[in-house]
């Protein structure tokens, strides 16, 4: 997991009434190897470190979002966290009904029935700049490819999305933007498994990419992306993980990960409720506040690549670089 592993055990709950935090997953469920899982990590962390009382409901259907959020709200939870942009409308509906309960939406803002988003006084909108994370790993990949480090000998860089939706494409857009910036001559290939679960499909896309000389494969496809990584491992090329630190998925194959700290967002927001510092409206998690970033590096990643990434990170923080959100190569 990407969450810092805090060692402070035994923090007992505050003597007063315990703060209650409820987490509602989207239909991906807790085992999605992606943001639901990360959110849950943040929840457990908050429970442990902050002494909160927490609970999770996994949604099985889209129509469950409203009742699931309502369930926590009705039970007077202090904070109800909706994981995923799919819950924008549900969150709007429930939050307007329970003005005294605080809500947070990962990757979204409350949206009314027309689809128009509106800030609500009791809802925190937790946004991530995935393109920044994509950009950072793109810098590492492109630098390695340009210098023909290790197995990266063909200067061809690939990526695979689950399905072409904005959060996925943002990652890839940032990745491609970085590559184009560092080495305009690099070959870029992108594909989709059209699935967030199916590993075999992800692997086949990976093998297909590798047959086109890709030596660095960036997955943005949840469980399906694990198959993409498996292809890289099998063929002895490099892969880049996504969302959480996936270096342990395939040591020696995964060189780094584009990280989106959903766990941090959950943890920080829970903490803000406890600290009475809850901020409604847009909250951005970006490179600036370590909300996104790159993960642990494999030993094969040379120092200059890390240096380039850190320089890019600084430039993003300073605003000198604004990674694209549209794909360069479809």
């Amino acid at each position, binding site marked *: 997991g990407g969450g810092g592993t805090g060692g402070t055990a035994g923090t007992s709950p505050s003597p007063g009434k315990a703060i209650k935090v*409820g987490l509602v997953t989207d*239909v991906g*469920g*807790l085992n999605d190897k992606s943001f639901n899982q990360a959110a849950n990590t943040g929840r457990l962390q908050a429970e442990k470190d902050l002494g909160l009382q927490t*609970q*999770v*409901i*996994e949604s*099985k*259907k*889209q*129509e*469950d979002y*409203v*009742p*699931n959020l*309502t*369930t*926590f709200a009705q*039970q007077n939870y202090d904070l109800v966290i909706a994981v995923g*942009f*799919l819950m*924008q409308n549900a969150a709007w509906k429930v939050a307007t*009904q329970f003005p005294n309960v605080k809500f947070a939406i990962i*990757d*979204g*803002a409350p*949206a009314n*029935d*027309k*689809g*128009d*988003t509106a800030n609500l006084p009791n809802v925190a909108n937790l946004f991530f700049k995935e393109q920044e994370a994509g950009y950072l790993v793109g810098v590492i990949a492109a630098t390695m490819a340009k210098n023909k480090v290790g197995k990266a000998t063909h200067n061809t860089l690939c990526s695979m999305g689950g*399905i*072409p*939706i*904005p*959060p996925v494409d943002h990652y890839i857009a940032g990745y491609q933007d970085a590559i184009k910036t560092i080495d305009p001559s690099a070959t870029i290939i992108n594909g989709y498994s*059209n699935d967030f679960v199916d590993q075999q499909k992800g692997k086949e896309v990976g093998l297909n990419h590798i047959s086109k000389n890709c030596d660095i494969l960036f997955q943005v496809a949840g469980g399906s992306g694990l198959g993409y990584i498996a292809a890289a491992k099998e063929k002895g090329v490099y892969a880049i993980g996504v969302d959480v630190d996936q270096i342990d998925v395939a040591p020696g194959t995964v060189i780094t990960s584009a990280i989106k700290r959903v766990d941090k967002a959950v943890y920080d927001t829970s903490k803000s409720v406890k600290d009475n510092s809850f901020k409604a409206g847009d909250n951005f998690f970006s490179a600036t506040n370590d909300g996104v970033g790159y993960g642990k590096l494999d030993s094969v990643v040379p120092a200059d690549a890390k240096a380039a990434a850190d320089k890019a990170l600084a430039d993003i923080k300073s605003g000198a670089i604004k990674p694209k959100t549209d794909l360069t190569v479809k």
Partner: protein
Amino acid sequence: MATEPQASPTGPATAPSVRQPAAQWATGPAVPVVSVAFALLVGMLFVLASGHDPISAYVDLFKGAFGSPYDITETLIQTIPLILAGLAVAVAFRSGLFNIGAESQLLVGAVAAGAVGARFASLPGPVLFPMVLLSGIGAGAAWGAIAGYLKAARGVNEVITTIMQNYIVVFVMHWLLQNGPMTAPNALGTPASAPIGDGAVLPVIIPNSIVPLTRLHAGIFLAIAAVVVFWFLLWRTSLGYELRAVGLGARAAAQAGINPRTRIVLAMAIAGGFAGLAGMIQVSGVFHRVFDGFSAGYGFDAIAVALLGKNSPIGIVLAALLFGAFARGGTIMQANAGVSAQLVSVIEALVLFVIAAELIVRILAARRRGPKPIEAIT
């Protein structure tokens, strides 16, 4: 020419089977109740094994489904599409066909309803609503009829067609809704269509002053109407008689002047219509738009609902309620008792299995048959 070899129904032969006389004792009204009770008992062991308090877990399950007016309305919301998709499976079964495609027929109905509802959003309700209703039903029917046609004209087993259709629709919806022709500009992160016009929205039927927060919409009346239509169609119309005749004895029907081919197409169209209506209701009553990943697996649960309900109107309603109650009650079981969603699935599957296997009844029946066990012949 018309004497086609319908004698042995393709697809599972159990589908239209007459209950064998030997199984006739499996019909008493107490049977499902006893079965559910037994299944819950077995499920209790699982809850216990997972380290939770089974009593409180079950109390939560029940309270979650029926504990308050709000919970009951939520259970009903879950039940509505299950009833309709169940009817879609049952109509086909009654006609000797195995419809695994209720899922995609539902989706096609939803897409059509969502497209029409959004495209003509400005029209007044009395004009728009019938348009949306008919497009949902019609699209589902047309999609279902394809499987029927392929079977009647080309002999393609409907199980193959409907399985493949399910996948095709999922991907076509990806395309339509992910930067595709139906994608709404302001859908933000959600790959979704534009909302349908107010005129197409099914109103909430219980004022929030009576049951706060309830979302129970007028779709429930459509579902009830559909159950009545199902019953009336099958048992009170000539067409229904013909469908059942084809389902139970295609050759006898053929020689009596009932053309099995046309009836097969009709049966699948009607099945698709019911499922399409389910999709339309989900759009008009719950979501007010279509989005990617709209599918909730109703079409698959529907197979169990239809068979559990013995393809009868009342049975389907009760079976759908059981599933709906589990869906809703399971949520509360998670939230309160901390029993995980997967464990709820496990218990649900157990209940289904025990009821399906008619375990209790069959054990009792074996006893009643006395000392000669039926399986003694070796």
